[in-house]
């Protein structure tokens, strides 16, 4: 359980990797491997998340290892920050718990020609305009109420559904993971209740740890790659963190119920019922993948529309078109998803079902799925930190393909419960502290803000540092918040 410290083995095998040998627990098919340094591994041990890494290693058909990133913490069945690939041809499974409730929660960054010097004097106006323009907060509906018929198309087309209606461009789709839509989405696999929950939430931010940020590129570590990505020191960027909203949450709910029975029918002996799963090549597995892809596509449509709303707000404040302001999408990544990808497994190229739950794809230079504009340098990897510190933009490296199925961390990871955070700080104090550091926050919930204060999170620089030193991705630049919008 969370709250207990992990007392099992963690062998330092070098390269910032800690192994849980498969002999640790009956049923483990592969080792567990956690990426961390000495400092982070002690936090990780305290959370008992390594026990979940060992449990995931018991999944039928899992290959190479049950992996975890340095931002790992306790989740439901799978740890947050976990990566697990299964071999469908060998009966490998897919598990809704390996994706999570917020299917395709992810991040996108826009670059701009604006500078911090231009934006700082107008930050109040800018943040207020974005806050007014972008629906955020509990119970706040989006700009469009879709019919089920329209949503059934949207969940197949993803971000292109929004672009085709004049909101965005082909460039936006090229610079979105999977082109903004996974093939194989099945609108029939999404329940009527999921459609009901999602009908007025496209173009909404929601609440909790979702946010919009106005940022400045305050340190560049890799000038050539930063240039390729279109970012420069002193330039202003806009980051959006959001997912599939109620539609995705309902899909996960629906298929957890399905999979709970399925796991037993297939004779799986799982150490944790939250790891419920079914073979990828089964009716249940295919149904879940069809619905999950639909929810993922909904999330990409959501982030596309959110980005359009941000562009409109920025344009209004500075009195120029988004094009004149250079408001181009750098990239959009998912960090809760399951995908079929080709990877080297034991010297053979195989199609594996890879679960990234709180983990981000990080493909290297030359990979055909990296947009042509970036293929010479590699895929942008967006790692948001907490609102008081910084976020990072990295680029994928070949070593990630070799070790982690092209995956890295997704963010800072929580270090403190929401309840504890509420005991320590008040939202108004958090607002004042941030203002003193030049960060303006607008939110619909001050209590919610308290739960998101910096002290509740690990330092993302520590997390990213491990990923970089392990050779999985290279740091390109650091982004500091100027303004934060939360629901």
């Amino acid at each position, binding site marked *: 359980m969370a709250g207990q410290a992990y007392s099992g083995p963690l062998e330092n095998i070098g390269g910032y990797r800690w192994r849980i040998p498969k002999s640790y627990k009956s049923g483990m098919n592969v080792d567990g491997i956690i990426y961390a340094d000495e400092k982070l591994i002690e936090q990780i041990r305290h959370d008992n998340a390594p026990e979940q890494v060992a449990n995931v290693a018991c999944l039928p058909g899992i290959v190479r290892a049950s992996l975890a990133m340095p931002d790992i913490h306790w989740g439901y069945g799978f740890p947050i920050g976990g990566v697990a690939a299964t071999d469908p041809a060998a009966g490998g499974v897919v598990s809704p718990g390996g994706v999570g409730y917020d299917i395709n929660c992810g991040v996108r960054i826009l670059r701009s020609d604006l500078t911090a010097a231009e934006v700082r004097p107008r930050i109040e106006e800018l943040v207020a305009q974005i806050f007014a323009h972008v629906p955020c907060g*509990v119970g706040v509906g989006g700009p469009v109420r879709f019919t089920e018929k329209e949503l059934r198309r949207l969940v197949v087309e993803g971000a292109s559904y929004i672009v085709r209606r004049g909101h965005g461009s082909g460039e936006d789709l090229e610079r979105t993971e999977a082109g903004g839509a996974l093939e194989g989405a099945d609108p029939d696999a999404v329940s009527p209740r999921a459609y*009901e929950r999602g009908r007025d939430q496209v173009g909404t931010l929601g609440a909790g740890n979702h946010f919009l940020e106005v940022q400045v590129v305050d340190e560049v570590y890799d000038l050539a790659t930063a240039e390729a990505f279109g970012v420069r020191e002193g330039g202003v960027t806009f980051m959006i963190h959001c997912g599939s909203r109620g539609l995705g949450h309902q899909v996960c709910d629906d298929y957890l119920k399905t999979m709970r029975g399925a796991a037993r029918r297939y004779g799986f002996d799982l150490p944790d019922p939250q790891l419920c799963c079914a073979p990828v090549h089964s009716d249940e597995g295919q149904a879940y993948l069809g619905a999950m892809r639909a929810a993922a596509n909904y999330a990409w449509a959501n982030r596309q529309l959110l980005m359009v709303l941000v562009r409109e707000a920025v344009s209004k404040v500075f009195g120029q078109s988004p094009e004149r302001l250079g408001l181009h999408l750098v990239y959009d990544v998912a960090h809760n998803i399951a995908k079929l990808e080709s990877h080297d497994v034991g010297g053979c190229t195989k199609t594996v079902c890879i679960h990234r739950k709180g983990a981000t794809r990080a493909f290297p230079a030359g990979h055909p799925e990296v947009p042509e504009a970036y293929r010479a340098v590699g895929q942008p990897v967006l790692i948001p930190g907490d609102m008081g510190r910084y976020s990072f933009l990295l680029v994928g490296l070949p070593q990630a393909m070799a070790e982690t199925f092209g995956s890295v961390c997704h963010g800072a990871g929580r270090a403190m419960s929401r309840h504890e955070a509420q005991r320590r700080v008040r939202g108004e104090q958090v607002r004042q502290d941030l203002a003193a550091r030049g960060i303006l926050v607008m939110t619909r919930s001050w209590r*919610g803000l308290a739960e998101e204060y910096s002290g509740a999170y690990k330092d993302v620089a520590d997390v990213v540092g491990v990923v970089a030193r392990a050779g999985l991705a290279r740091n390109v630049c650091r982004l500091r918040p100027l303004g934060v919008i939360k629901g």
Partner: protein
Amino acid sequence: MGTFTVFDHTADVGLEVRAESLADLLATAARAVFDQILEDWPDAAEVQEDLRFEISDPLEEVLARSPMATPEGDLGELLVVWLQELLYRFETRRLVPLSFDFAAAGPCEVRARVGFGRFDPARHRARLEVKAVTYHGLQVREEGGAWSARFILDV
């Protein structure tokens, strides 16, 4: 109405509920969940609705699935489905449960008339968005007439 407390969980919200009957446990659990969501509650119930559902999986499935499963039903599933029904109405119609009149509460079914108030984001502040009620660490127990439940909300 029974009582509830929040317990620590790294990323989400854990709730422990105590009551003197299963019906009271369900009502208190509902109150506990919406206490996490809302800072301001609607004043009065404007909508009355009947909620009715059954937990009717094959006995074998029920028994294999959950430590709380009994030949009479799965109380954990009952609690989760009850709360999910309420969250669904909140998310799609902005309805907040304020009063409960149970015709049946467990072991396999719930029949209740629920009085709902309307949540208006322009007037009412909210704190948290609950994505789901999870099965993680789910417990429903009865000992000597005292009922308790523990569950975690994904937020």
